[in-house]
Structures are given as C-alpha cells and as structure tokens.
C-alpha cells in the first residue's frame, strides 16, 4: 500500500493550489454575497485545461487520472466551494457519461468541446417529485420519426443556464419503471428547451442552480445516449463518479475552514494569551485534523478505485458520506472557535459552513449513501 501522490500529481496539486489562491480566493466572498456565477474564473480554467482533467487527450482532454481531477476540485473548494462544484458538475456529470456511453459520433460532437472546456456541461435527473426516488421520473420522451419530443421539467440543476450541453433523463416507457428511463444529450438551443427559475440558496451561492423546462422539446434521435431504457443505469453510474467529485468538494471545504481556524486561534487573544494555548482549542483542532485526514484517504481511495475497478459505488458512497459529514462538523467547529467573529461575514468560515451543508444533500443525500453502503453489506 502506497499513500504517496505521484510526482505529477504533487506538481498538479501545486498548480491547483496556486491558481486557487491567486485567481479564485480573491473573488470568493463577492461571488457568495452577490450570488454571481464566476464566469471569468471558468474562462481561465478552460484555458488551463481544468475542465477536462480526466478526459482522454484524443478528445482534447488533459489525459490525467481521476485523482488529479479530485485534487483540482479539492484545492478550488478550499477557497471557494462554488468554483469546486462548477468543475465537478461539468466533469463528472456533464462530460463523463458521454465518455462512457457515447457513440463515436457523439464523442466527436460533444465530448471534444466538453473535454476542452469550450462548452460547459450539466446533468438533469432531479424533478419536483423525483429526488432520492429518481425512479419517479415524470419527464417524458416520445419518439416521433427522426427525433424525440421531450416534455416535463427538472429542478436544482447545477450549471443550469450556464451550461451548453445537458444530459437529460426522461421516461420513454413508463410501464417498465426504471427500465423505461432513457438518457438524452440536449443542447441549450434545442427548440422547446428553456431555463426556469434560478434558486436562491443557503450556500454555494455563485453556482447557478436552476429549473429546466421542456415543452415539446425536439431532440434528434442520434442524441439518445446509450440504448432506450438504459437511462437509469447511466444515471446511477454517473452519480457514482459525481459523488467522488462532491466528496472532494466536501474535503476541500473542511480543509479550507481548518486552515482559517488555525490562523485565527494563533492570533485571537483572550485571558491574556492566544486561544491556541487553551487545551479545548487544541483538542478541537486535533479532532478536526484527524477527521479531515480520514476523509482524505477515503476520497483518494475512491478516486483510484474509479480508474482501477469496474464498480466503485461503495467506495464513492463511503467517501461522500464521510467527507460531507466531516465538512459539516469541521466547519461548525470552525465557526465556534471563531466565536462571534465566526458568525459574521468578516471571516470566511460562516460561508464555508453554509457551503458544507449541501454536500450532505446533493448527488445523493447522506441517507442515500447509507442505503448504497448497507445494501452492499446485506446483499
């Protein structure tokens, strides 16, 4: 067993760290306060290849591994969870399914611009009445000659309104239940497709989370991803990968809050000495750091499993479950150790605590992760 990153992964981490410190951190507070999508950062990341890290070079990607992509999301999320999730949703949810299930023509047409970052991707599964129970899809797709006609709506879609390409799930045969769901590649300009309400959120406020509306949306037949009825399988396998991205985001948030806290407790003086001198502070820090390291090992292991194992659902679920709960716990403790200042927007830890919460919810709640893990134990 080797717990060392390779030299190239170490150097990539330095790159992501420097980029995050210089380009992302200075905008983080403003992006949060104004709920602004950081388009300028996305453009910079596109030029540097951050939007195609684990994608094959033959399609314009960077040709790196999943762990390197995880390091990117982690470093970005240390300073700005919004930026972290933009990359994660684009890569794991918007691009990976085309890489895995796309035809050579679909890869040429869609994977290439997504891997180079020229186009931004998104993924639409959740509906008002189909969240954790994704099988309750109400969006319908009906084949009509050379195209499908989509009707219905999706909610809580990350990169909604900013993405150019959407992976959309719809029922092609309701009688077959989950086996009646199909996946489609939908371009933002397809007739009958529009963006609905933008959500106002507690955290990751710069991330664009919107409703997607399909009213007799025309989708060419060749944009069916995989086979008819394969949609649920595509969605679940895509989410296995997505969970590793969110686990990396959660890990980054926890580490970011921890670093801020270490800095603060050394400076803040009470009773005539820095609060770092009190054993309560020391023990809290010890617990926070230990949990962060444990989360890191689970997240990195899941990333390696994605590249080396055919099925990695349990590794991904454990990584996301644990990292998300550690992020919530560490950020809450970080605010507590900052005292009153931690509750104000003068310090970034309150933002980090708000950002952490979503990692326990999206791309499968913590409860869903427990279902995946226990289901595997008791199968």
């Amino acid at each position, binding site marked *: 067993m080797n717990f060392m990153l*390779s*030299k*190239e992964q170490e*150097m*990539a981490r330095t*790159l992501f760290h*420097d*980029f995050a410190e210089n380009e992302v951190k200075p905008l983080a507070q403003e992006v949060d306060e104004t709920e602004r999508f950081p388009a300028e950062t996305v453009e910079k990341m596109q030029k*540097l*290849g*951050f939007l195609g*890290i684990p994608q094959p*070079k033959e399609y314009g*990607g*960077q*040709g*790196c591994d999943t762990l*390197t992509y995880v390091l*990117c999301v982690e470093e970005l999320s240390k300073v700005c969870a919004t930026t972290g999730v933009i990359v994660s949703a684009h890569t794991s949810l918007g691009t990976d399914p085309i890489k895995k299930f796309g035809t050579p023509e679909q890869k040429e047409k869609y994977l290439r611009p997504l891997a180079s970052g020229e186009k931004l991707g998104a993924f639409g599964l959740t509906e008002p009445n189909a969240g954790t129970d994704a099988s309750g899809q109400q969006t319908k797709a009906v084949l009509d000659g050379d195209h499908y006609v989509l009707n219905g709506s999706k909610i809580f879609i990350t990169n909604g309104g900013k993405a150019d390409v959407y992976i959309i799930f719809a029922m092609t045969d309701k009688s077959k239940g989950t086996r009646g769901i199909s996946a489609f590649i939908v371009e933002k300009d397809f007739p009958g497709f529009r963006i609905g309400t933008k959500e106002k959120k507690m955290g990751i406020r710069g991330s664009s989370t919107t409703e997607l509306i399909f009213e007799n949306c025309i989708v060419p037949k060749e944009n069916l991803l995989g086979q008819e009825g394969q949609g649920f399988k595509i969605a679940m396998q895509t989410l296995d990968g997505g969970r590793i991205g969110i686990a990396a985001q959660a890990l980054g948030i926890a580490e970011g809050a921890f670093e801020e806290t270490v800095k603060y407790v050394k400076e803040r003086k009470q009773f005539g000495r820095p609060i770092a001198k009190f054993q309560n502070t020391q023990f809290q820090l010890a617990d926070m750091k230990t949990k962060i390291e444990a989360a890191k090992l689970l997240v990195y292991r899941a990333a390696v499993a994605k590249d080396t194992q055919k099925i990695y659902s349990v590794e991904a679920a454990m990584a996301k479950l644990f990292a998300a709960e550690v992020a919530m716990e560490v950020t809450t403790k970080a605010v507590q150790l900052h005292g009153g200042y931690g509750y104000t927007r003068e310090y970034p830890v309150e933002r980090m605590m708000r950002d952490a919460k979503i990692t326990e919810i999206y791309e499968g709640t913590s409860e869903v992760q427990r279902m995946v893990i226990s289901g595997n134990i008791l199968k």
Partner: protein
Amino acid sequence: MNIVVCIKQVPNTNEVKLDPVKGTLIRDGVPSIMNPDDKAGLEAALRLKDSMGAHVTVVSMGPLQADAVLREAMAMGADDAYLISDRAFGGADTLATSTTIAAAIKKLPYDLIITGRQAIDGDTAQVGPQIAEHLNIPNVSYAEDIQVEGDTVTVKRQYEDRYHTVKVKMPCLITALSELNQPRYMTPGGIFDAYREKTVTTWTVNDIEVDMDKIGLKGSPTRVFQSFPKSLKAAGTVVTLDGEEAADYMLEKLREKFII
C-alpha cells in the same frame, strides 16, 4: 529560432529562516521553486515561441532534485530539458558555475540565451553575464521587455531611474527581470506529459568539454568568510518641515547625539 533558457531551483526564500548562530540559510523542509527571474525569462521565451515559433530548451545546473524545475518548465511549454549534475560541480561559485553552464550550452544550438537577472538564494547577478563572456557573445542585462525582429533583439534595459533601449544581433544573452511578465500557469496535461512522455537529459562532467581545474570548488576563486543577518535598526522618525527648519532640526539632532 533556438532559445536556451537557464533556470535554477532555489529554496522559496519567503519561507527560509536564518540560522542565528552560523548566519547561513536553513534550507531543510523549505519548498523549492523555480527562481522567479528565471521563470520570467522562460515566459519571455515561451511568448516568442507562441508568436513567431521557436524551440525552447531549458538548462539547469544542480543536484538531481532540480529535475522538478525542468519538468515544471516543460509543463509550461519548454520543448526539452538538460540537467547538468555531477559531484564534480559541487561547491561552485559563480565563475565555476558559468564555466560549466557555458560548456553545456556550447553543445546546444542557440540563437538567444535567456537567464534570470539573479537567483533569490544568492543575489549575485553574475552567472548570466559570465556565460555570455565564456561564449563570446553580447549580453544585455536587466531586460524589462524583449522584442525580436529578424536577427535583431530589442531590449528595454532597466535602470534605477531610466531605461535604455538596446538593439543587439543574435546570438546574444539577455538577463530577465521578474517584472518582465507574469509567467503562465502549467496545465494538468502538460505536467503529465512532462513526467510521462518527455525526458530530462542529464549531463555529467563526462558529457561536456571543460577543464577540471575550472569547475567545482577547485575552480572557484570566491571564498565566503562570514555570512550574517542584517542587524536590526531602530525605526526612524519622519518629520515634515520646510528647508530651513529641516536643516535646523537635523543640526539639533546631530548635536544631541554628539555627532557634531
């Protein structure tokens, strides 16, 4: 056009502490980086490559760990890399260093050589100009801007209170200031290629033509007698007075201290 860029791996001096007894740098555990002036020189070369096409070769003299800065340079866009590394080169001062590097560069095709002005761990600013001397080519130091047209390089040379515009025919050597530009970031794919698809060629003393008496400690006339940290001075006082009052004030202070 062939451009050779000399780069050095240095300790990140922002994080270096001084041994209070010995007066030397404590390098243990300090992260190593590409020297900032050298990085600006590399960026200048890569911009010439982007705008007019060029083959960019990076050269570094140092221990085997210096491989990392050469990989970093290739991840930024350099085409190939040479590491000049041998125990025989150890203990070299600027003269022995420039002798060694010049001997290596003689084996490479070059029209333009770019080095950083100085390294942040030594601040001598001597190696670049000395390489030019060894190669018998012109040298323009402290470049703030570099333009190439045909076989001529136009350099904006920085002084404290002015700059000179100097035109020089290639082959020549230019030393770059970190103010020259904002070096680009690497790309993730560039990093992976630098490690997995490109190679750093290591040259030992047997690979270059050099007089053994002119390299390493033996070839180094410089002797460091003592190094010491700058002594701390008390904070000064700023007073704003007009000419005559200021003179009176100064006289009074000098008398107070029994200087006059």
